[in-house]
């Protein structure tokens, strides 16, 4: 998601999330809403990457491209963008520019 100046926004995971791997799934507890989110492997990978360092849509696409099946690699950009939007809407990641609550 490019900013007004054309640069890509970067995202970080909220620092106060609680998460647990149960089987192949990742359960994430949101500390404010107390909602629990069940993330699939791709979303979990993005969230974990965002917890290690700020991530942009291109950096996430690069991560996903190595993991996706051959026939899905062409859409890695779209998937990365979509996952960042979804996780951001859930309040699990925040843009670095709004990092105060993270």
């Amino acid at each position, binding site marked *: 998601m490019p900013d007004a100046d054309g640069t890509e926004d970067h995202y970080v995971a909220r620092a106060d999330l609680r998460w647990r791997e*149960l089987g*192949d799934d990742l359960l994430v507890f949101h500390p404010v809403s107390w909602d629990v989110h069940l993330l699939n492997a791709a979303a979990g990978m993005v969230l974990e990457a965002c917890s290690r360092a700020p991530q942009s849509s291109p950096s996430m696409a690069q991560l996903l491209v190595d993991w996706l099946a051959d026939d899905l690699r062409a859409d890695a950009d779209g998937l990365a963008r979509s996952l960042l939007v979804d996780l951001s809407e859930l309040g699990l990641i925040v843009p670095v520019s709004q990092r105060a609550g993270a």
Partner: protein
Amino acid sequence: MLVHELGVDGVAARLRGDGLGIDLGAAAVCIRSDIDELPSLLSRLYGDFDVAAAPGLFDVTVQLKVERAWWRRLRPQVNLWLDGEREFEPFPRDTPLPLLEWGINYGLASRLSCHLLLHAGVVARGDKALVLPAMPGSGKSTLTAYLSRRGYRLLSDEFGVIRLDDRLVLPLLRPVALKNASIDVLRAADPALTLGPSYPRTRKGTVAHMAPSASDARAVHQPARPAAIVFPQYVPGAGAELRPLEPARTFGRLAVNSFNYDVLGPQGFEALCDVIETTSAHSLVYGDLAAAVSHIDALMAGPAAGAEPT
């Protein structure tokens, strides 16, 4: 001192005085009432429980009091008081025991938030607990009661009490409320069963209460380690089929079957995850109790039933 050692007159005196305190394990309740038939019923169904001194500190105080107004004589009613508050409109006078038991359940479910409370039956073999969470009408009580007559220790018919400190399951023992056909099924399974009277026309049909065994009542302060979780579903005519459940799906089903998961927030989340990580989880569709029990026996004897916590 045990409740039956008070004698019916002694129980009656306590019910009309400071209250009859009963130690249920994870909680203690105080019961007060002026209803004539309750002393003998409580002596029978709670006879092997320890008396808790009253006045004292109780998790819930329940009072059933007959409505004395003259216009109530045609349709007698009782009032249910919880911790000194009358939270409900009066109830019909003819089902005092189901009302008392329901009142205790309501009080415990809404007040005992120092533990994670699952709506579940719990039995144990040795120190390994089998948790049977289920929605009403799923055959949970029947299966729990039946297991308690087949070599399993009964910890609770209604509450899976997970202690937050160590994730152990605490007994919260009460008489088991059997409904409709289950009453005869259990009577046939164990003719020596101590049963209270059958109450027809309750909200759940005919209800009768089964007293826990004396050995179960003596063990109300022995926790057990959660080893297996089984979600039962009674389907008439079915045999018995046990299917493994994915951990994430188990989480969702346990959270839905919890009385206070939403109250505990992060503590509830961590406790549920810990329990799921150290247990095996299955769904059980059953119509044949004996077949269901043999599946459960095999599950509890096998390695899947509860890895030792690391």
